[in-house]
């Protein structure tokens, strides 16, 4: 079992006391692909980032269990966490415009990830970076290695991110909305790339998205989150048989060309979903 | 619905009207400001300074100009709480009246400078083109001098004195406001609501005055407060160099200049006005920092 989360609670201080951003979340992940779906503010990013303890400093995190490969992440110190981050688990963020360091070349950033965890000289790391760029299907890896993030398109930037996170050869990849900032045509390519690399390396994947059909296509299991809670968890293939009204609502809201719809469905939110 | 201006009403997450939303925002800003301990210290100190200056005749029970050559350079005593200076005048009274001079100068400068800077900046930003380039060129020229040096040159040309000092400082203090206002205007200029106002047939003047300038206000206010500490220091520096308020006026910088020679044995005579300048400047800095954190965090 790679990741075990039981009863995770993440709170933030506000003017009127502590407010729950994530409540009662329990998930497990093996060597499989888990998708976490939800709208903005549902707490999906927070949940995933808590595995690596990459939350803002004012977040209050409590859980019955929060482990990565049986290492207690909640009580681990910075040194232990740094041994997990990068080396054993990677994180891909949404927009490479912001998530890549603007004043370092792509190659330098990838090489850095390589060297910190695998050691080796600068030249070796630089060559490894170019190899990795080729692995993420960049056609001109030498040029891209010497380019700065603002000179790269969104799709290329995400490939650089992926290369960077895969450099230390981790066991788990967390992809936080990896395609949300990309053009529709590039989205599928990037996801296929992620899926391919993850399968080949035998890694676990947590894919976070607001796009239900996308997630169901690429993942084995799907967890649906709403207002900081997991409202439903099911196999991707069982999605059409979802039972929770929120999931059903999401499915029904999807516009489709296969049968006539006079009006697009609108989600009816039931306040009872906020209580569990 | 809870009572108007009650704490609940002010913390409401769902304001009922635009005015309500404005009040919620103000209260939230106030809470944020209040949580900042240093900013509160600044606010209280500034308030005390203003009150003390205004009430100087009541609080200073000695005459600040009354000389007593026999009792000069006396250490603090019951009769003279902060001692006497080189001409036997009560330092405590002079500090209080000096506060009037200093604060008066600062207010005068700011009242001159902020409207002019705001006007120049928003006009330049809104009209663009030639007007913008010309106005910014003028701004750049004044920004090209270090403030004190230009103020000194101006004061030298006019007669050294408090009016010249105010004008000189004002002439060097306005450019940053123009820059700020221009930056804010450029941000707002392309928005839809300005376009909408233009469509209703409003003249440029009206648009600038009634719509654009109010939006520049918060950064200008923050800048004003932060600037005040710098103005206090510049005014004191001018006084120290003999170019600002002239003796016998009890300006803090001037007081230090005239008693400088006595720093060895009667150290309190030049040091106390120095502390006063420091406290005043510090208070405005703290206040300005606090206000900036609430109103305009992007500014530095």
């Amino acid at each position: 079992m790679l990741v075990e989360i039981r009863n995770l609670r993440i709170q933030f201080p506000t003017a009127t006391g502590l407010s729950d951003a994530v409540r009662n979340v329990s998930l497990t992940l093996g060597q499989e692909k888990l998708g976490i779906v939800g709208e903005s503010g549902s707490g999906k990013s927070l949940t995933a980032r808590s595995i690596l303890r990459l939350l803002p400093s004012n977040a209050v995190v409590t859980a019955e269990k929060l482990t990565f490969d049986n290492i207690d992440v909640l009580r681990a110190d910075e040194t232990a966490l740094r041994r997990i981050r990068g080396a054993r688990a990677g994180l891909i963020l949404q927009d490479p415009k912001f998530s890549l360091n603007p004043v370092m070349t792509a190659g330098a950033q990838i090489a850095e990830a390589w060297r910190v965890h695998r050691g080796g000289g600068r030249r070796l790391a630089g060559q490894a970076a170019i190899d990795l760029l080729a692995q993420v299907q960049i056609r001109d890896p030498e040029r891209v290695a010497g380019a700065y993030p603002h000179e790269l398109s969104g799709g290329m930037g995400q490939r650089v991110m992926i290369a960077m996170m895969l450099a230390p050869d981790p066991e788990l990849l967390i992809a936080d909305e990896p395609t949300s900032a990309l053009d529709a045509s590039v989205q599928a390519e990037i996801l296929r790339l992620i899926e391919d690399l993850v399968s080949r390396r035998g890694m676990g994947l947590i894919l976070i998205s607001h796009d239900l059909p996308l997630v169901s296509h690429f993942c084995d299991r799907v967890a649906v989150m709403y207002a900081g809670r997991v409202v439903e968890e099911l196999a991707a293939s069982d999605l059409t048989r979802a039972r929770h009204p929120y999931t059903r609502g999401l499915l029904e809201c999807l516009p489709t060309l296969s049968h006539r719809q006079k009006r697009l469905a609108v989600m009816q939110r039931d306040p009872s979903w906020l209580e569990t | 619905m809870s009572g108007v201006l009650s704490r609940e009403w002010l913390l409401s997450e769902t304001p009922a009207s635009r005015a309500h939303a404005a009040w919620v925002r103000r209260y939230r800003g106030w809470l944020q400001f209040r949580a900042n301990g240093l900013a509160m210290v600044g606010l209280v100190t500034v308030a005390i300074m203003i009150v003390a200056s205004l009430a100087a005749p009541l609080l200073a029970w000695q005459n600040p100009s009354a000389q007593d050559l026999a009792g000069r350079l006396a250490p603090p005593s019951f009769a003279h709480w902060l001692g006497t200076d080189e001409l036997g005048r009560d330092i405590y009274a002079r500090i209080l009246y000096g506060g009037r001079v200093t604060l008066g100068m600062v207010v005068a400068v700011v009242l001159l400078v902020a409207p002019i800077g705001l006007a120049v900046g928003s006009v330049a930003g809104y009209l663009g083109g030639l007007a913008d380039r010309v106005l910014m060129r003028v701004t750049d020229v004044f920004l090209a001098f270090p403030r004190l040096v230009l103020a000194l040159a101006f004061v030298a040309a006019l007669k050294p004195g408090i009016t010249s000092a105010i004008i000189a400082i004002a002439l060097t203090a306005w450019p940053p406001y123009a820059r700020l206002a221009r930056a804010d205007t450029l941000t707002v200029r392309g928005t839809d609501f300005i376009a909408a106002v233009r469509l209703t047939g409003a003249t440029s003047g009206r648009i600038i005055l009634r719509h654009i300038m109010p939006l520049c206000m918060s950064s200008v206010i923050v800048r004003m407060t932060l600037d005040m500490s710098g103005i206090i220091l510049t005014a004191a520096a001018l006084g120290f160099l003999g170019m600002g308020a002239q003796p016998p006026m009890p300006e803090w910088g001037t007081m230090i200049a005239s008693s400088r020679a006595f720093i060895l044995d009667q150290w309190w005579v030049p040091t106390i006005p120095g502390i006063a300048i420091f406290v005043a400047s510090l208070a405005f800095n703290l206040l300005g920092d606090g206000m900036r954190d609430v109103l305009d965090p992007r500014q530095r």
Partner: protein
Amino acid sequence: MLASSFASVPLTLFGLTLVTFLIGRVMPIDPIIAIAGDHAPPDVIAAVREQLGLDKPLLVQFWIYLVNLAHGDLGRSVMTSHPVTEDIAQYFPATLELATTAITIAIIIGIPLGVIAAARQGSRFDHAVRVVSLAGQSVPVFVLALLCLLVFYVKLGIAPGTGQLDVAYEGLVPRVTGMLVIDSVIAGDWDSFWDALAHLAQPALVLAYFSMAYITRMTRAFMIEALSGEYIITARAKGLSATRILWRHAFGNIAVRLVTVLALAYAGLLEGAVITETVFSWPGLGLYLTVSLLNADMNAVLGATLVVGLVYLVLNLLADLLYRLLDPRVA
């Protein structure tokens, strides 16, 4: 665009000269009387007026002023009887020495303080740094300078008094650059060197404190902003050490903007130098300026103001240039 930055220089320069010229012509003290004396007969006054060119229309006077400027002629100082340009060449190096020493100290201490304070935002260290920084912005330079003299020179006796050198060493070191610390090394005169250094210490440290306050504040502000960037989360996710993230990633991002700040800080030192030199009797441009002011020597005042303005302008331009050159995003 680099081109527009350069293009604006002549215009700003023109504005500078215009302003100084106008200041000079708004004089309360009749320069004629300053030269001819209070009780000179009218024909002498007329002769002097003609000699100074003050009988010509203002526009012509300005043209003459510009022409003179182009030839490097800033007029003659009433006080020293030397050409102002000569005076400035004499006194400027001392200010340069003072300012450069001050900013070096300020950078070495100020930047690390700002970086670490930002890394430990909200901690006691951070608060201490902020207080020290804030105090530096609020203390009047002359008060601090006077207090330093009082405490270190008078009371404790560990620092020498005012001036650049002890009277005993005066005139011993031949002038090469005008900066005594360097000149004494060139001359191999180690006694003079230590004395010059000792005299340099106090004014430089006072100035350094003010610069440091500004530099630390800006570094801290920039770092706090940089540390909130998404790429910092990426760096943490990569498992990098905190030191590496702080310096290589966050600081690396602000380094370019910091260069601009440093150039501005150096320019700001020119202001601080005016007062510091006055208190410490340091024979630099600032002292020259204030003494000329007290003597109503308008040529000297305006010449010095113009030169200071010019240096300020050059520094600002340099800051702008460096920013454009170093930031890969503005290539």
